[in-house]
């Protein structure tokens, strides 16, 4: 048998480059380059491995602005066979539900798939909700926090990292797995891969092609709304010590440790 695989990837700001604005306490995002969400690289690595073992095809998909095409080309350089960009003005402002709906609809239109892989969470939003929500919309069996997998023709044996330890499960196909970085060591793009990536055709789909309506996607289709954004309130009286005062500061720390009966 051959395996039809899909990987959900997201383009995120490179968090190593993000700097804080000392005045406003906000992040400076200008000039920060974009990368593929690190855990999605683990997902891709696993998919490419499975397709090599069984024969099959790896499709990567991302919903995002047109720049997200870069992420898809990088994924092709890393071994993906086909790339789909879901880009439409109407998709903007999507919460995890509205994102999942577009991804699920795409899987339905371009599938069927045996195994879909996603990162456990993305470094920017960090909801970790998209994978499970897509699985539920597709009616696929779901496993989360996957740190080891062994795929077979009828299902996948997984180890999942949970608070209590390691959970061993058997997940029949079709399934969606969200993965952790213990799963594997993502490889680097090869020269041949890079060449292929440059020439590759990226399939672009929007609202019309997916047969969705404006009311169901993007901000309009999102059940949640951001009502306000604020900087956290300062709730403590800070005693500040520097330079020659530091010895007094250390005295205060000793007092606190004594009060708490630590020393």
């Amino acid at each position, binding site marked *: 048998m051959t395996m039809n695989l899909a990987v959900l990837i997201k383009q995120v700001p490179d968090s190593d480059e993000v700097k804080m604005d000392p005045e406003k306490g906000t992040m400076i995002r200008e000039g920060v380059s974009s990368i593929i969400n690190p855990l999605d690289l683990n997902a891709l690595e696993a998919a490419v491995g499975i397709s090599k073992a069984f024969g099959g095809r790896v499709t990567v998909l991302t919903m995002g602005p047109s720049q997200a095409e870069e992420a898809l080309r990088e994924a092709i350089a890393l071994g993906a066979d086909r790339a789909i960009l879901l880009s439409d003005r109407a998709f903007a402002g999507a919460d995890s539900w509205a994102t*999942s709906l577009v991804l699920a609809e795409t899987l339905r239109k371009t599938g069927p798939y045996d195994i879909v892989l996603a990162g456990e969470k993305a470094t920017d939003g960090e909801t970790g909700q998209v994978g499970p929500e897509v699985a539920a919309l597709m009616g696929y069996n779901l496993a989360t926090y996957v740190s080891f997998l062994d795929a077979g023709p009828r299902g996948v044996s997984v180890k999942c990292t949970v608070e209590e330890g390691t959970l061993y*499960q058997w997940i029949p196909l079709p399934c969606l797995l969200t993965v952790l970085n213990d799963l594997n060591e993502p490889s680097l793009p090869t020269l041949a891969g890079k060449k292929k990536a440059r020439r590759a055709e990226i399939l672009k789909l929007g609202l019309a092609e997916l047969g969705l309506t404006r009311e169901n996607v993007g901000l309009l289709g999102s059940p949640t709304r951001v009502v306000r954004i604020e900087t956290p309130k300062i709730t403590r009286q800070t005693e500040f010590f520097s330079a020659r005062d530091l010895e007094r500061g250390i005295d205060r720390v000793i007092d606190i440790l004594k009060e708490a009966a630590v020393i």
Partner: protein
Amino acid sequence: MRKEDRNFQGILVFGETRSNKIHSVTYELTGKARNLADVKGCEVSVLLLAESLRDDPSDLFRFGADKVLVVQDPSLSIFNQGIAVNVLKAIIEAENPEILLAPATTIGRTVLPSVAAMLQTGLTADCTGLEIDPDSGLLLQTRPAIGGNVMATIKTPVHRPQMATVRPKTFRIPAPRNRTGTLIYPTLPKETFSSPIQSIHLQRAEGDGGNIQDRDCVVSGGKGLRRPEGFRLIKELAELIDAGVGASRPTVEAKWISYPHQVGLSGKVVAPKIYLAAGISGAVQHLAGMQTAQKIIAINKDPEAPIFRIADVALCGDLYDILPRLIERIRVERCERNG
């Protein structure tokens, strides 16, 4: 589902049990749900799934529950997401809660998004604050926002239930009160307890140096340590005062220390008596994991470091100067006390 479609009422807490015992986060969420319910004037129900519960579920009444639903079945001995989703969905369909709260544990973070998608409603992950909007009666869900040093407040205006997950230790367990409620053992159709997924085995891990969430003191190091060996100094201080060792995310990503030590939005939430942060700037994602500590002591060479804004004691200077001095002082205090 839209609120017009049914009469949604009350708050349901998806409780967590481990090894047939009620996990402390269930008490934390029950207490928080009680506060919210008192504002709304509604009831709090708590759902527990177990093979065969060893704790007394009626204990939850004293922490704010009006109703406790205990679903017991042999299939619940090891977590199975397929079955857990079936059970929660069945209970939601019977109870029609307006609000659903769950712990942001691996279980809650697996079951809740699945159920949210099936019910076509919104879900906010890892909330650090929950409130009822006095005007609309809606649940206001606050969480650190994408990327910035800011908090976003989110609501779910028309879809029901309004769903949120909350990290353990975010809210305190309230003092128990003298109250009672109704204990129910719902019977669900047999097929609820079957799933194509097979949970084969749960291998319990040996404790990784003890859980930092259970410690009275936590000493954490950040990027300001500048090199992996910096954690030796952190550990030395931690051992001296019997504290857990915490860390900021970049130090974990750089593999200076392992992930179970990470404090913050994508690590653990700690609420110790004393939290000492050395070389940590105080990004909102880090604060999300420690701001409820009783006393915060921060060491940073930058007088403008955001961590100082929430610290009780700010020591501005080089941590490689201050930490050894502090360690020395503690040793001296010890000697003097021991005669």
